[in-house]
């Protein structure tokens, strides 16, 4: 399964798409990430990730309505595919498994 693992940023974008369902599009995702994590990401980074994940089949997209604020250009709405859901939950399970295997003592040690 080498190479199919989600990158950290991709996972973040994927989760955001889920959050915004069904109206996840470029600027919206960017702003949501900023609002929730405080990370300033650029539009092109978001698009690059979206493009890559769409090629991998994690998300799919369709064109929506045109608005004047976008200069008459249509939005592209993204939704997570079944494969995307699977990858997300796999990632989540991996994390949880890791969390679970950390001995309790680790959390009790005072590092100061």
């Amino acid at each position, binding site marked *: 399964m080498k190479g199919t693992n989600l990158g950290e940023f991709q996972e973040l974008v994927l989760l955001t798409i889920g959050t915004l369902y069904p109206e996840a599009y470029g600027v919206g995702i960017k702003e949501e990430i900023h609002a929730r994590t405080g990370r300033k990401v650029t*539009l092109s980074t978001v698009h690059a990730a979206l493009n890559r994940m769409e090629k991998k089949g994690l998300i799919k997209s369709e064109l929506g309505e045109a608005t004047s*604020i976008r200069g008459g250009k249509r939005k592209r709405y993204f939704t997570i595919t079944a494969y995307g859901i699977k990858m997300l939950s796999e990632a989540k399970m991996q994390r949880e498994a890791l969390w679970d295997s950390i001995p309790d003592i680790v959390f009790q040690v005072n590092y100061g």
Partner: protein
Amino acid sequence: MKQRFKNHTPPRLPQRLLRWYCKPELAEDIEGDIHEDYNKRYNRSGRRTARFYYWIDVIRFFRPFAIKNIFKTRVNNTMFRINTLIAFRNLKKNPGYSLTNIFGLSVALAVSLLAITLLYELHSFDAFHEHEQEIYRVQTNVKYDNYPLRTEASTTLALLNYLENDFPEIEKVAAFRFGVDDKVKANEKSLRLSGLMANQATLSVFSFPMLAGSREALSEPNSVVLTESAASKLFDKTDVLGELIEIGSEPYKVTGLIEDVPRKSHIQFEMLVSLSSLDEYTEGGSPLSNWNDRFQSYIYIQTGDHEPIQRINEVLGEMGSEHYSNPQMALKFSLEPLGNIATGGVDNNPIGFVFPTTKLRFVEWLAAIVVILACFNYTNLTLAKSFGRTKEVGTRKAIGAKTGQLLGQFTFESVIVSLLSLSLAFLIFYLSKDAFLTLIPTRNLLTLELSWQIVVMALALTITLGIVSALFPAFVLSRLKAIEVMTENHSNRLLKRQNLRKVLLTIQVGVAILFINGAYIIHAQYEFIQAHDLGYNTDDIYNLNLQGNSFETFRAEFSSIPGIDQISQSEFVTNSGSAAAYYGYYDNPADSTYIFSLDVNPAYLGLHEYRLLAGTGFDDPDASGKSVVVNREFLEQFGLESPQQAIGEAIHFHNEIYFIQGVVENFHYERLSYEIKPFAFRLIGHDSGFANIKAEPSGTIDIMDRLKTKWETLYPDQEFQAIPYYQLLERSNRGLLNLSQIIRSITLLSLIISLLGILGLVAYDARARLKEITIRKVLGAELKHLVFKLSKSYLLVFLLAAALAIPLTAWNFDEYILQRYSYHINLGISQLGLGALILFLFLAITISYQVRSVSRKAPLSALRNQ
């Protein structure tokens, strides 16, 4: 929520940029997102910020995922590949033709590479000086009598004071002066270093990189600044500040050390001596105030930050008439920017390197002509070859190729040919570089290194050449109509469009004739000059620089060497570029003019076999320090009737009265480019100048070796400086010899290009008319008829070319080249006819050969495929 935002128009330029590079399937979405962000920013932070971020966003999206494949989508990739394939197949199909083309173009490109490299190198001279843009040289423009205006790089140091004090525009003034003794001693070591005197400001005006000492190092008298390699030669180390050295016999203190003078500097030296040392060892008037001392000093001014120099030029222009009262001489000073000096036209009294402008223009012109010839050649051959490709074009058109695509294909082929040629051109360039360097004045400073800028220029030139020379053939071919091509008559129709071919061929043949004639004429002129009777005999004579040693001692010692016949003494050597001239007149002071002169001892005239027309020469016991021997021109200039009548007449010369002791036939005391003027020999009265040693005409004995051995035993400290007269004459005609060699090599190159072109053309013509020739043969035509038939159009071209080229050669050489030589050959039928003859023979042989080889084919096999 959306209604809160008003739509604003984003900047157009980045928008267009985005639309250009972005993948079409992503474009709408991305542009919309950027636009939306833009509008939000606009309302939040204002127009400027929003526009700025629009730019940033567009630039940020320039990432692999969003960029469409510009090259692949625009120019169809498959087509590009196929075009390349076709181009190479075509090259392979006709190897002879391709080689001709590639060779011709690469020769032309190699010549232009040489020219470009030379130009580039010359223009980068002196650019390392920090104030390059603000430095100007003061030069002197002199107009004597009716001689042409002469601009000298040197000037007088008397200007220094004015320049330093009277001009607010001038920041600093640097001055150089020749005359530093080259014998340098330090730590028991003695060697020769080339030095210049320089004033205090020199090191701050010019940015020669300092290694030690300050830029004020030349302020004290008897200070010297050494270059790194001079220091290590003298001391074997470079930590030399404060050391004492002896220059001539004066002590000097080393006050500075600079890096070796960069190769690209027109001023070259190994040491700089402070100009303030000058006062202490010059006799007579100080050069700092003597306006007539203007042949050894050089002044450079540095203006304040790009100040205009107009006013300085005006004031300097008037200064001449204030300080020079000679009515026959008008003198002006003027400024020349530092950047122009290396390529400038001022090669009188240069301080160092200068590449004469006329020679530079000459190289440029030759390169341009060769390039144009090669282009013509390509166009011509391609046009000729287009016969063979009409079917290809027709087929392509029939299956839907557009004119533009065909145009592209043919241009592309041509560019490939020229790029192949360029690689060969680099090879030729490297092989011929050294030979070229020996033909131009380089002073070992020019190396013709390639740099990336030159490679870029060469690439641009090559591609342009490829496109230009393909333009016409490509146009003709791509405009063919499919139906025209597929019907029988196409080649006739195509032929009609080939008038240009004839025009180009005429020019090629004409230029070839011009070049052959030119090379022959210049060579003949060189031979003429070498063989020209100078009016005196130079055979077996060796000139030796006495370097101030006593002539009588020298003669006593050297006469005993076996093989030596006679020895005489002269102030300098005739025909070596040295000359002296003073004002003088016969009986009327109003006739005053320059009389050239040479001081000699009594044996001189006899030894050189001057032809005495009257009188006795200096051998007469009556001859005294007041005697002169004049030439025939002298009599003519001053209206003396006959040589006999002139003997004993008094003349005024060099502010004294002399009596004519003898008259000699006119002779050439200068190169043959100079006209003979009045001349007077005087008796030499001091121990300087040269010994003229006449050897017995035995031929086999090496006199030079014997002279050298003797010199070294007599004067062990002084360098042996002698040269056989014939070598000196060769050297003084060097310029013409070089011109002759350059023209000869260019002639050869352009001739090869043209001849190969004609060869290719005739071959194609014969092939294209294969059917006609075969049918004529079958019907009983003889070879000579066939040859004549095919030659007809070429004969016309040849006659036209000859009719244009011959008068052009005559005019060109008479007007511009031979007129520079007061004594020159007259153009005759052989000089003017040679080129035409060679071309005619070549055409005749080529055509007969081609027709023969075509008509030898068995008629059946020749006609089967037609």
